[in-house]
Every structure is written in C-alpha cells, then in structure tokens.
C-alpha cells in the first residue's frame, strides 16, 4: 500500500506516492526527480543529502518521506533564484571550492542554513557547523573560505 503525500518543495506544491519506509531522499530523487540531492551513505554521516525541512537543516536520508506531509522542503534546486545564483553558489565557483562536486549541493544547502542563523560565523563555527558534510577532495580549505567570504559579502549588502 502506497501513501499519498502532499507537501511543498522549493515553494511549489508537490505530491507523491511512497511506501511507509521510504526516505525523503529516495522520494526526492526517484519520485520527484530532484537528483541534485545526493546519496553518499544513507546513514546520516556524510551530509550529501542535506535539505532544509521547515527551516531546519536535516539529512534527507534520515527523514521518512511520509513525515514531510504538509511541511516545507527546500533542496539545492531551490537555492538559485531563476538565473541568479545565490551568493554561496557564486563564491563556491570563485574560490574553486569544489572538485568532483558530489558533496557541493549538500555543502551549499548546509552553509546557507548556517548563514541564515549566524551571519558572522568565525572560521571555527563554520568548521563545526559543516562537520556533518564530508568532502574528500578539497581538504575543506577553499570551502571554508568561500563560506566566510559569502558571509562577509552578505553582511556588507545588509549594512
């Protein structure tokens, strides 16, 4: 028996059928075809599947799909506004903060959640917030620089 779920994804109404034990990650990728959210482990250890659920950063592999009924899901596909990149996306490109790119959507979603809570994170705060997102290519250096530079630019813009 499949469950019918109505939810909001990136600001738009969305509906899907799922089985009770399916993860949100699975539904995003296989039912809604939003493959920007990646699976690296399916156990909540790598952060590649990071999404925001009702304003809270979560690993979508650890959320059961039926749980999102009536709630708001934000994924990497909703981060840019039309043709305009989010400053984080731009800074990741400018700082060469990605190599293979598989972890990048998760990092951008997680970093955006950080900057919405803390517009002026220290390097240490950024490193601890992003400690749930694994990157095996970059050594994190350029990722942290991109995040801190974005924060600085956004603070400048709101001043």
């Amino acid at each position, binding site marked *: 028996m499949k469950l019918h779920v109505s939810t909001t994804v990136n600001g738009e109404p969305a509906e899907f059928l799922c089985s009770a034990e399916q993860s949100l990650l699975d539904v995003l*990728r296989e039912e809604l075809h939003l493959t920007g959210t990646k699976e*690296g482990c399916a156990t909540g250890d790598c952060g590649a599947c990071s999404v925001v659920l009702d304003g809270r950063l979560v690993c979508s592999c650890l959320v059961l799909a039926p749980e999102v009924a009536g709630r708001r899901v934000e994924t*990497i596909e909703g981060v840019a506004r039309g043709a305009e990149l989010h400053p984080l996306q731009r800074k990741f490109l400018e700082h*060469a903060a990605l190599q293979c790119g598989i972890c990048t959507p998760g990092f951008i979603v997680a970093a955006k959640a950080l900057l919405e809570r803390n517009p002026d994170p220290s390097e240490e705060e950024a490193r601890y917030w992003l400690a*749930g997102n694994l990157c095996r290519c970059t050594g994190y250096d350029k990722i942290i620089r991109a995040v801190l530079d974005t924060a600085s630019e956004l603070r400048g813009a709101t001043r």
Partner: protein
Amino acid sequence: MSERKFRQVGTRPIRHDGLDKVTGRAQFGADFSLPGMLWGKVLRSPHAHARIRSIDVSAALALPGVHAVITGRDFPEVAAESAAGGEGATDFRDLALNVMARDKALYHGHPVAAVAATSVRIAEEACKKIAVDYEVLTPVLSLDQALAKDAPILHERMRASGDEPLPEGPTNLASRREMGRGDVAAGFAAADAVVEREFRTPMVHQGYIEPHAVLARTGEDGRAVVYCCTQGPFMVRAFSAKVLGVATDTIKVVPTEIGGGFGGKTTVYLEPLAILLSRKSGRPVKMVMTREEVFRATGPTSGTHIRVKMGAKRDGTLTAAEAVLVYEAGAFKGSPVGAAMMTVFAPYKLANVRIEGWDVVVNKPKVAAYRAPGAPMAALATETVMDELARKLGQDPIDFRLVNAAHEGVQATYGPKFRAIGFVESLRAAKAHPHYRAPLGANQGRGVACGFWFNAGLSSSANVSINEDGSAVVMSGCPDIGGSRASLALMAAEELGIPVEQVRPVVVDTESIGFNDLTGGSRVTFATGMAVIEAARDVVNQLRARAAKTWEVELDAVAWNEGRAVAVNGAEGKHEPLTLRQLAARAAATGGPISGRASLTARGAGPGFATHLCDVEVDRETGAVKVLRYTAVQDAGRAVHPSYVEGQMQGGVAQGIGWALNEEYVYDARGAMENPGFLDYRVPVASDLPMIDTVIVEVPNPMHPYGVRGVGETPIVPPLAAVANAVERAAGVEIRELPISPPKLLALIEGAR
C-alpha cells in the same frame, strides 16, 4: 619553453562544469534513469573465506517482480592475462573472479549472485531467497597469518613468483622481488649513525563520497550502452568485454560526472553484472552500491609491514638504505608494492640500496589504486627514519634532506637519471616559509616530510572543433575528477588565442573519440593536455591556411597571433588581420568546417616532489592529536590552473592526515569489517583540520610543451610521515603503527613515562 609568456595558462577562470555542480544539475553515476528500468542488487558472501558448494536461485526467480538472477555460472571462464593500465597491471582472470565469485568466496562482501527486479526492495528480498551452501574456511586476515607455516591457502593454484628464495607449492605469497645497487653492508659500515625501524599500517579506503553506480541497457543485437561513474570509460569497455567474453565493440560506455575516485574507480565491479542482468532481462538495469558495499567490496589500499634501515655520515651524507616492504594485496595478487619499491628512496641520492617487496594475498577486498599507490606508507617509513637520523646527527631536518636531495642528473634509485626536477627547490621554499620559523608551544611539535611520485604518460586522444561563431569545443575521453576540464580548456585557449570562456571542454563517450587510457597516474593535465595542445595547433594551422587562401598568399606568410591570422614574411600590412570569428564564419567558403585532432602516447613524464610541514599538539591526557598548522610545498612544473593545483595539494594532505590519525579497516575474528560506514570509518571532517597552506614551485618539465607535471598524487605521499614526525617531536614517542589514534598514542605516552 620556460621563457614563453602565457596569457591564459596560470590564470584562475571559473571551471566550465562548475555551474551545474553548484546548482545540483550535474548528473553523476546514480542520477541516470531509463524507461522500463530494473534495479539490480548483489548478494555478497557473509564469510571471509568459504568454498561455494552450490547456489540455488529458484526461490529468488519465483518472486514476483524478479526478472533475472545471475551467478558465477553465467560468466565464461576467463584466461589469466595481464594488462597494464594507468595504475598498475590487471589480471583478467582475477578480475573476473573478483566481479563474481565462482568456487570460492575470498572476502566478506565478495559477490556470489546478483538480481534484477522492478524495485530495489524486491531485488533485496530476492537476494535473501538465494540459498548458498558454503563450506566455511579459516580466514587469513593479516600478513603474519598469511605467511605463517600451515596458513590456510586462498588460491590452490597460485605459486610465488619473482626472486629466490621463494616458497615451494601453494602459498599466499604472490611474489617477492628485489632491486638495488652498490654494497649495502659497506655503506652501513661507513655510517656514523644508523637507524632501523619497523612500521605497520592498516588497510584504508579512498573514501570517495559517490558510491559506485551504473545503468546498462542491452539491445536485441547484444550491444550494450553503459552509463557509469568511472575514471576510465575505455577501461570499463575493455574490462567488461573481457569478463563477459564479448567483443569490445559491443559495449559503449558513457562516462557520467564522477564523485571522486582517487584510483578506486580504475577497475570494474558492477558494470559487467549490470550488462549481464540487462542482457538476461531485456531491460535497462541500474545498480548503485550502498556505502557498506563500497567499504566491504571495493577500493582499499594495502595494509603493510615495512622495515627501513638507513645510515648517514656525520656530515649528513647518506651511505646506505635498505627496505623490506610487505604489502597486502587483498584477495587477489597485485598490491602496489612494485611502486612502493620504486618510490621508497626515490627522493635521495643513494649509492648503496637494497629493496625487497612482497605481495601477499589475504581474505580482504582486492586492493585498488589509491592516489600514489603504495608510496605513502613507504614514505612514512623512510621519512620518519630520516627524521630520526637528523636528530641523531644534530641536524636540521630540511638541511639534512638538502644534503641528500636528488636533482637533475642524479641516477634515481629506481633506475633512470632525473631530468629537471624541483625537489631541492621545494625544500628551500619550505625552509624559507614563515611556518618553519614560527614558535611552538608546550606539547606541540613540527614534522617535516618529503614525497615523490611519478606521473604516467600513456595514450590520449583529443579533438578541438571550431564552432561557426568562432568559439571552440575541446573533447577528451578522460573523466574529470578534479578540474582537468578547466585545465584542458586553458591549454586550448592558450593555443587558439581566445578567451577560455569561449572554449567548452567536454568528456565524451567511447564511440565519440579515439582511445584514451584512464584518468589516473596524475596523467590527464600532462598527457591529455599534450594531445589538446597538439589538436589546437592542428586547428591553428588550418586557420592559417584559410587566411592564406583568402589572401592568396603562401602559408608561411600567415602567422597566428592572439587569436588572429596576421600577414608576415613580406606580406606585412598588406592584409587586415582575420580573427578566429571571421575565419569561422567563412569556413564553408574556404574549405569546410574546421576541427583538429591528436592522438598520442605521451613519454617523458616529469616526476613530482613535495615537502610538507605539519604542526600538531598532543593531548597527553587523552592521546588526541590536533593538527594546528600545515604547509604543503610542491613542484607543479607549470600550474595550468593554480586553484586546482592548490586543491589537489590540500585534498591529498587531508586524506593523508586521515590516514595518519584516524582511518583503518577494523576486522572481527571472522573477517567481517566492523566499521563499514562513515560514522566508524572516520575520514577527516571540516572541524578536524586547519587551513592548508600551499606553495607551488614551478620547475618546468622539459618533456611537456608548457612544462606541466602531474600534481594529483604527490600530495598524499608526505603527510603520513609529516604527522608522525610532528607527533614524535611533540610527545617524545616513537611511532611504529598507524593510525595514531588516541588509545594507541596514549599507550605510547604512558609507556614512555
């Protein structure tokens, strides 16, 4: 060459594939689907060592939704045949047996059957219904167990090869080889100080974040199209054809974006299974590994047991060096011990050397290439022994290395004479760096270590075609695992004289370009880059010919200058220059579309050297190590895109720090890996690391038109020793084993009290 002034090479443009990667649009291995697609799952051995008496798949086949089940019996017998690749040789018989077990399961996680069904859940359910009758055998889980008298034997047919003395009859020693020169005994006799130490390092995994994934469809004519994340689409084609006993041309491989490889995606695991399941079911079949499967059945690099002895005179001159390198190969022969033998003393001038390398099979997954395969563990031994020698002789560790550093003209310990190399320059740059003079606090220590790695040449093909608007497309067949598309585009832009933004670099499938060896051996920017430069020069010559035709002059009266054809050789000023855009617009009238190509086998790869500085602080109460500061210096020859050179250096350092401090395969007594997830197999996270400072040294490689050297692998060679040396100096202990995890270090600290 070195005087050439570059306009594009050395700049830091935004990578062409970046936009798709920051928006989630980029399609990786698991992101492809086809109508009517089935899902494949693998049944894996729960035993590390077992004879397979029989397999009954009837209950699985009877499950509604199951379309195909395969076991070892569905595969042809494959003859033993060795093929060289970007990262070492592959024996196709072993490969076939690794992809799907036949008579014996040789590690926990070894595939014994595979299923295609309408959903992952049904496929998993079907796997549970497959009845395998195992005769469980005693597993061989360490080098000591493997080499013990009366050890259980993995391969009854295997005999040791190499240099005598070798054991007679069945053995787990696949090979024992020796190399060397000079008189080692005399060398040690002449030494004022001799240090000899033993090291053990565990198996570790590449840890790419993207699990292996494949989608295969097979037509009624038997032709297969395979979408997969791989470092080598031509390798997947050749290896799958061998395993399946079909002609190479019946398989087309479309490389997807690849979410990390580090050598671990230079062989096949799922691809032949997906092709066969698709052939049997008549439907497309998609297979994606779980993280647990990735840990249990792919990748790792060797656990090792290494003994290194080195001697030096009071003035610091090394007199002799000896190494015994014993490497786990996993379930099938072929550890990277050969490369370890070649690299272990490569940075140093040595007249008297003796190196022994053992390749040993154990009941663990077959090792795959991992970034500078075999070298980091060997460098751990050499560089910690070097550090102890420096301390014994009262010398500065960098000065001590400078006395012995290899340079142009020195006969490398592995054979050839070095051409221009940048080792001395990397040592000097490290010594001059403010990091080296920064004060240290209590319980802090600074480690120095050096590293060497080759870069492979091998075969590459590239096409450069000019669009009708004067922009260009660069095609290659080497998947981009760290920014190589940006580098290839920069090289084409340099030759064509157009902005790099007008060059579109793409990685294409196996039927769209000439043969390419895989992405590995730090070879793509070097060797495929050479092919791109040659193809772009082919285009430039055609553009000159079109201008000559337009102007009705001889070809040598046209030069190509900053993206324009200009009249020269007596025709100066007689014709208005023609831009690439103008020539492209007139291409149809002057001879047709313009495209260039090059296929080559690159020779004369220039080895890379690095010197790393690492500061750590040791918590003497817990044994925890914090990396406080890290600086990596490396000779890149010519940094084509410096940001991605830095990125390679930083990434290699991070992997090396993980290897030094945290990472290891932990096995239970039955041979099951106990930590097959990122929670328990702990790769470095952002809060574990400081910023990683980089210094790029450029000593051009004389064998490349721009001076490029491969840069991807060298950075993982020094960190194991850099961290170990820093911990030794901080805590006053002797490191003999990795990882330097808190309980192990605490025991050493308490033992030293």
